[in-house]
């Protein structure tokens, strides 16, 4: 049957081109329509040898890459360069002309205690969230890796928070953590606490709760990464180690972890970048001031406050802080890579 289906492949569009000419495999020739189109723009001989030569033109790979390159440049590289440029100006959303102000924005930034508070919060976020986000999804993946009956339900359940919108998740967490919310009510009913824990009015607790939210929402996503990686760890190694008397922990540490090392580095980098960009979690739990007194503001929060108002924002200053955030992200990523490399050697 299968053979027959192949025989029924669509007939070539142009008459006469039906039977392959000797020495030419149709697979290596562009479809007739493309060939004709190319012929009309490329002067010169139109023999098959010429057609093949066409594919060896130096610019052809660039042509294929052009859409991606243009997209990246217009929406990635250009805004990036423009941000750096704007960070040396006093640009505003309205008002047209703007002046170069040299390093003014940067000196203002370095002398603003609010900037340092936001930096501290962002770095703290990364330092606490990244290790947990590298480890916990791995454990979760090991838990649901085996094909047991009904395991699909648990995999889906762990993945569900990923699909929910941040705002919905944020609202649910508000209800969970409020003074009369589920967590406090339960703890009070169980006589573990008497007064409600101020999850949503103490600045440290807001920050920790936001980290919890990020972790909870990210677990399922990175679990998928690890599930894929775990599939590549040779089963034989585990079996051999088990035969040699290695316990579960030893096998995890000496076989699983080295096996998914690449994924761990990837997850570490991605969550590192993500946790420096946290905004929604803080906003949902700490409100638009970023916690009481603005004590939970992260760098993106600070950028929004100083630079993103569409009418009165200071775009120049906002750009300067964005550049600082970029430098911080790049710095931490490089540092992490360096540490892992040293570890390896």
């Amino acid at each position, binding site marked *: 049957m299968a053979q027959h289906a192949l025989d029924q492949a669509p007939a070539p569009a142009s008459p006469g081109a039906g039977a392959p000419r000797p020495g030419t495999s149709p697979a290596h020739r562009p479809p007739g329509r493309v060939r004709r189109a190319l012929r009309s723009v490329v002067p010169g001989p139109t023999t098959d040898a010429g057609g093949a030569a066409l594919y060896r033109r130096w610019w052809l790979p660039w042509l294929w890459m052009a859409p991606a390159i243009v997209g990246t440049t217009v929406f990635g590289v250009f805004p990036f360069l423009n941000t750096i440029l704007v960070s040396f100006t006093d640009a505003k959303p309205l008002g047209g002309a703007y002046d170069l102000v040299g390093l003014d924005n940067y000196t203002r930034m370095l002398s603003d205690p609010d900037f340092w508070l936001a930096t501290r919060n962002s770095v703290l976020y990364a330092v606490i969230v990244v290790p947990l986000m590298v480890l916990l999804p791995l454990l979760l993946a090991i838990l649901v890796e085996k094909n047991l009956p009904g395991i699909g339900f648990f995999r889906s359940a762990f993945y569900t928070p990923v699909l929910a919108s941040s705002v919905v998740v944020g609202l649910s967490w508000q209800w969970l953590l409020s003074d009369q919310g589920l967590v406090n009510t339960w703890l009070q009913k169980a006589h573990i606490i008497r007064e409600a824990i101020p999850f*949503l009015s103490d600045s440290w607790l807001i920050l920790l709760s936001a980290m919890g939210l990020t972790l909870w929402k990210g677990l399922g996503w990175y679990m998928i990464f690890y599930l894929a990686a775990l599939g590549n760890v040779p089963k034989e190694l585990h079996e051999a180690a088990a035969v040699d008397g290695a316990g579960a922990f030893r096998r995890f540490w000496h076989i699983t972890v080295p096996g998914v090392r690449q994924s761990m580095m990837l997850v570490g980098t991605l969550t590192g970048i993500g946790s420096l960009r946290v905004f929604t979690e803080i906003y949902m739990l700490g409100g638009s001031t*970023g916690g009481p007194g603005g004590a939970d503001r992260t760098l993106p929060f600070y950028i929004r406050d100083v630079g993103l108002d569409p009418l009165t924002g200071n775009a120049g200053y906002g750009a300067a802080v964005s550049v600082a955030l970029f430098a911080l992200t790049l710095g931490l990523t490089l540092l992490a890579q360096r540490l892992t490399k040293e570890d390896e050697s």
Partner: protein
Amino acid sequence: MRARRLTRTLTCIAALSLAAAGCGLSGGSGGGDATAGGCEVDQGNVGSGKLSGDVKGTITFQTTNLKKDFGDYFNGVISAFEKAHPGAKVKWIDDPGDATFTQRLVADAQGCTLPDVVNINVNTAVALTKNGYLLDLDKKAPDAGEPFVPALWKSSLYADAKGTKVHSVLPWYSGGIVQTFNDDLLRKAGLDPAKPPTTVLGLFEDAEKVAKASDGKYYAFLANPQLRIPADWQQMGIRILSADGKTFTFADDPKTAQWVEAMTRLYKNGGMPRDSLSSTQDPANVYGQGKLVYGPTNPNFLRFIQQNNPTVYKKTGVARFMLDDLGHTVGAPQYIGVASTSKNAATALAFAQFLTDAKNQLEWAKDPNVVIFPSTTASLDDPFFQSVEGDDPFARARKIVASDRKTATADEIALTPGELNAISAQIQLAMQGKKSAEDALKEAQSKANELIEQGS
């Protein structure tokens, strides 16, 4: 160094190499005889002298998210206008009004393509007037203010590029302000719904009684100071901004510290939910759950409660807003502006005036889907706003607000979101007992001043 040319060249080189149109942040082109906001405009649109020209040609008219519910009304107004002025055509654009709406509007203005007639709020009116994107009505249409409530018209003034306060917008509809409360809970706290407070600090005194009686089961109102600033202060007669609008002065008035202390006391005594200090909770929802004594102050909220929590609605009482030292309410209406970059400014102005005239405003206000109050004197006297049947809170609120709107002014202090956040953050610290009221206010004022200095 004037860097406009340099940056523009650099940006354009980058842009060219990417085949991208537009040059980043640079403004409109200069040159030409008449300019406004960096755009070349018709000579007649700027300078002195009344606007002249025939009412004809095509103009664009932009509203924000109104087509879905009020398409028929607007299409009716537009066709009536076109019928009265043969040769004139109005192209209606309804922006969805999402999070990037203001950015789009600003981009339009910068690109010299602001819609000819545009619906804007007070913050946008301030920014567009300052940058010259709106027609100066004092010069171009000196009698434009006639149909409007005098108090409202006199206060709808915004500073132009030179700092002169001018009329650049026509007042349209507003939402109004009114006290709302849960009668049952008020009585439980030993308060008389028939004797609502008449001052802001009087409200706090009543709220203290609520705190004492409630035992954490219900509250006076939510704690987040953002919900009460700057309305409370303005009502108390506190001078929030200097006359030139360049520095904040609220911390210099001892009454502001009294207000912060009242907030702090009430928060400490349990008159407000502790977890609402900085939260985004919507007071309308919490009131609807029967957990708040005092509800939000916009009459539109009554309609919301009526639909979502009919039991609580029936217990809801209304009263005139605390007029306090100010003696009248404040609330900037929605505005209609005419672009100074309009190619058919005479037509645009004629349509803006037609849209905001007494007849058209009243017709819309009568739509059962809206709770809005017209800005024209003649409309507010209409029997529609005066009739109260039975004890319906909504109808009573409508009557109270319609009478208040005759003395209400538009000089609401329009804090930018950044300023509001900076000020509120400090007051939150005071309410948590981490700072004294005076220190918090001083810090709030200096941070807000820094934002003015750094902002536009």
